[in-house]
């Protein structure tokens, strides 16, 4: 009996362990993304259509018989209030605008779905009728390539990737694959600006996810925006501190990443009075709210999702967000109607109205905590960017002092996308130690 009892207790413990690990991190996910802005205008690269057959497409969208079914693999929970939710809602947008139908699977990462791979899970979506599958995270880049090559009759969108960028470093001809990314560099510049004009201490913390091309260029963009507005507000550039702490993944995975809540708290308690989120969710907001309620007024900038400020509006300076809907709509429509082209799309905001849900791929919503004076400076930056100001203009040095852009030199798309290090003046790791 005693043996059975001990087995029972062990089984109970194992069950709890397994279920907990299956439930995985509840935090959000964010992904990859960002886009750089070199020329100040949206640029969409359309490589020549390779001379290879592409899938024939589905049966039209609205109106013509069966709806076009598309699948979506989300790296985090569909309701993470961040990266994955932005994708999920874009899927809903396509359903509504085009009459297409979405099947999706969220929490597609090794911690939440042990023993599976994204390409395998994509096949599950195809089994449910999906004719096109969206892979929503940089974490799934290799798997999206594998899947696209193994399933040439299924359309694939790899968000935030660069596999089919002809001028990119890892170009491959994959006729049924498209890359889509918003030029979040602009959003991050506005985020950095909002942080700089609101900081009392001149110390800005950046909650970084993992280190790669995308996160380096986005973090650097936030810094460029912060520096620009810091100087616009008449401050000494030498007084601005901008520090990045990387947690190791797009969101918190207990035991594997640094805890982003803890990282935020460390920033706030060491004089950084504004923390910008760069991870797949905005867990810095509740932390800022808590500390503010306890008598230490601090502020936060959210990320990824249009309504991310809602969790703690009184400390939120704003949120740069992705609006994947318009580009997903175009891509899905092209797949359904037979005009699909494998291409790399890196699209900026609609400067006429960066918050237009039907035309702008990235946007910025100002938060309640942004002062009227601060808002004026942020608006001015947005207006300047719209009229051609490019903060990726030299002189710009890399973190180790190496000149990157000479005086007056404007960064090319490649220089922005593949930024090799953080920039001079930024504190934090540029690559793994």
């Amino acid at each position, binding site marked *: *009996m005693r043996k*059975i*009892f001990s*087995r*029972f207790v*062990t*089984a*109970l413990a*194992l*069950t*709890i*362990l*397994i*279920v907990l*690990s*299956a*439930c995985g991190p509840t935090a959000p996910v964010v992904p990859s993304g960002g886009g750089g802005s070199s020329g100040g205008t949206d640029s969409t690269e359309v490589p020549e259509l390779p001379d290879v057959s592409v899938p024939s497409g589905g049966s039209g969208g609205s109106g013509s018989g069966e709806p076009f079914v598309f699948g979506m693999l989300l790296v985090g929970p569909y309701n993470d209030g961040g990266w994955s939710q932005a994708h999920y809602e874009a899927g809903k947008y396509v359903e509504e605008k085009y009459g297409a139908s979405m*099947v*999706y*699977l*969220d*929490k597609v990462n*090794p*911690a939440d*779905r*042990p*023993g*599976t*791979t994204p390409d*395998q*899970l994509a*096949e*599950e*979506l195809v*089994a*449910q009728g999906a004719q096109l599958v969206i892979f929503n995270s*940089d*974490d799934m880049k*290799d798997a999206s390539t594998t899947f696209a090559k*193994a399933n040439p009759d299924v359309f694939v969108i790899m968000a935030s990737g660069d596999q089919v960028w002809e001028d990119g470093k890892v170009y491959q001809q994959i006729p049924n694959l498209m890359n889509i990314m918003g030029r979040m560099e602009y959003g991050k510049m506005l985020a950095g600006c909002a942080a700089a004009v609101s900081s009392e201490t001149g110390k800005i913390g950046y909650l970084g996810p*993992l*280190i*790669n*091309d995308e996160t380096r260029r986005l973090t650097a963009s936030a810094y460029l925006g912060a520096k620009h507005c810091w100087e616009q507000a008449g401050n000494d550039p030498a007084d601005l501190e901008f520090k990045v702490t*990387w947690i*190791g*993944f797009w969101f918190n*995975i207990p*035991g*594997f*990443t640094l805890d982003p809540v803890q990282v935020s708290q460390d920033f706030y308690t060491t004089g950084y009075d504004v923390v910008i989120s760069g991870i797949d969710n905005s867990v810095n907001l509740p932390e800022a709210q808590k500390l503010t309620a306890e008598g230490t007024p601090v502020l936060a900038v959210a990320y990824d999702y249009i309504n991310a400020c809602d969790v703690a509006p009184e400390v939120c300076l704003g949120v740069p967000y992705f609006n994947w809907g318009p580009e997903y709509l175009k891509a899905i429509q092209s797949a359904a109607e037979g005009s699909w082209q494998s291409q790399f799309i890196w699209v900026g905001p609609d400067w006429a109205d960066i918050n237009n849900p039907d035309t702008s791929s990235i946007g910025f919503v100002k938060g309640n905590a942004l002062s009227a004076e601060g808002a004026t400076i942020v608006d001015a930056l947005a207006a300047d960017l719209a009229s051609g100001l490019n903060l990726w203009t030299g002189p710009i040095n890399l973190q180790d002092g190496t000149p990157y852009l000479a005086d007056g030199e404007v960064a090319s798309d490649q220089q922005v996308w593949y930024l*090799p290090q953080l920039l001079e003046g930024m504190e934090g*790791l540029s*690559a*793994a*130690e």
Partner: protein
Amino acid sequence: MLKSRWSGLFFQLIALVLSLTVVSLILLSIGASPLNAFSNMLTGSVGSTRKIAEVLVSFVPLLLVTAGLLITFSAGLWNIGVEGQIVLGAIASVWVFRIFIDSTLPPSLIIFLSFLGGMFGGALWAALTGLLKTFGGVNEIFGGLGLNFVANALTLYLIFGAWKREGVASMSGTEPLPDSFSLDQLGELRISPTALIVAILAIVFVYFVLNGTYFGLKLKAVGKNFRAAYLLGIPTWQYSMYSFLICGALAGIAGAVQVAAVYHRLIPSISSGYGYLGLMVAMLINYQAIWAIPVAFFFAALNIGSIQLPIVMQLDSSLSGVLQGILVLFVLLVEGFRQKFIKRSSQT
């Protein structure tokens, strides 16, 4: 009557029905149809050849781990450290691949060497638990658990440090290995026949060792009564170490399979929780190797079938974990009752 094999089966059926009932109640409480959920899980796991192949992908490492655990359980050891042993097997096999990455040797030979590496890595990690127990007096549960954490930390160190992808610091894993380092596949299906054969051979080997050799008999003697076995002249601590080594080697192969057949790189959760799941399977089958294949297949099918729940019904797929756990709990609970009745009836 209660002692017969049939009554044991009958009681286990009761346990199965009870666990299905509890899971159904959970489903009903959130407004989902249990029938719908179970049928989705069924079609999602054995509804097509492709799905069965996916189940087998999960079944292979689970069976390997279960086979290993049957050995340590027979020796009376709770090898919770099996998770870490899978991880070390994976690390060692990736290491071998990295050594031979530019080699002109035939890829099949390199894959074979990576399996040997995996076996060695897993066995080494298990030996550490064994040594801690034998010479340090550290219970294998605590030693194993501690080493699991160390194994995870080592993986993270390698992914973020020594084996990092250029310019990247991400939990996503190391650079994928060349395609030539992948295990064979059965046509379009993801399952590797080689891996499947290795796993089946492993359980047959364990069955044979436990039921047909003096070694197995002595191992069981050590497990049943350590002191008596010692007095009978069995070198007890050596036998404990042997069992750790065998289990570690089998877990290490599971890690190598995860690398060469599934992930083709090192990732943080490379063990996929198969160690803990293997412990459940071993407990559920009451340490009888003969049942390992069907029960491991059933658990693997639950894992794969449950992916349908979020896709089709918007339910959380951790439900399969709940079902697996509840099932083991009920089987043990029911078995406890049966033993109690047997005891009572033999007293009267």
